[in-house]
């Protein structure tokens, strides 16, 4: 079980209250009518599956029902950081 800090409620809650919503920071194509099938397919289906740091979108589903982002280590399952949508992560993988 994760014990997750909700940045909106300002306290830790059980994982049971949350849902993972997949990879964070996905940018919808600004002009979807004119993007190629490849670009649209990349946006819709192609997701990262890193070994190590991963930025994910989560929702506090039974609490405040707000979305937020989480940086998690997919090897150790350690939650490195939780931050609001619109903010930039401070913990990022070395490129």
């Amino acid at each position, binding site marked *: 079980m994760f014990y997750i800090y909700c940045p909106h409620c300002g306290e830790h809650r059980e994982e049971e209250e949350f849902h993972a919503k997949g990879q964070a920071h996905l940018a919808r194509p600004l002009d979807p009518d004119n993007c190629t099938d490849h670009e649209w397919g990349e946006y819709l289906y192609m997701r990262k599956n890193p070994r190590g740091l991963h930025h994910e979108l989560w929702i506090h589903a039974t*609490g405040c029902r707000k979305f937020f982002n989480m940086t998690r280590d997919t090897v150790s399952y350690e939650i490195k950081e939780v931050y609001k*949508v619109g903010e930039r992560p401070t913990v990022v993988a070395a*490129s």
Partner: protein
Amino acid sequence: MSDIIAPTKPAAVEAAPVATVALMDQLPSADIRAESPLYHADLATVAKQGPKTGGVTLQEHKLLGHLVIRGNQDNAGFLAGARAVLGFDLPTQPLTAAEDGALSVRWIAPDEWLVIMPGKEAFELENRLRAAMSGHVAIVNVSGGQTVLELSGPDARAVLKKSTPYDVHDRNFPVGKVVTTVFAKSQAVIRRTGEQNWELVIRRSFADYLWLWLQDACAEFGLVVKD
């Protein structure tokens, strides 16, 4: 880092008036019978015939008016309008509540509050809030969709411990705090109203299930139903 996109939050719209919406008084006439979500359980009869002493007391505060208010905390016209009508500030601190007599407000999310008042006042209060608030605001009367249960007594906390993963210890859940959390695999807004008093706001569709759950969970302590 180039693939990390973080859109900025749009500024609150302050000047725009509240949009025209179709309003409906959900209690058009006093002679129309209203049924609470636990009407079928006939709690009045259970209260009369059931035990009078026990570790947990359950009471349904039925047919209250429930309004969901949504708006941006950065919008001064929204907060000022709420203060003018309610007589006190919206609780902007997370997990807090404010109340004055029969009127109470619970923080639900950074842009959402639940106001509960006597059922007959809901429509009038909704209209006054709508007139007083400006900007991007939503007010919805959800009175028919949920009901309020009060658990009290020396074993009320033990029942909560069986029902929710949330830590209900004094150190984490002082009197006055409000949390929206998992309750018996369903969801409830739990507010501590006293040392031994807990208020649950539950959904209509889960009311029967939770009534059955609470009867089972309270059985070992002795459940007293109060009308």
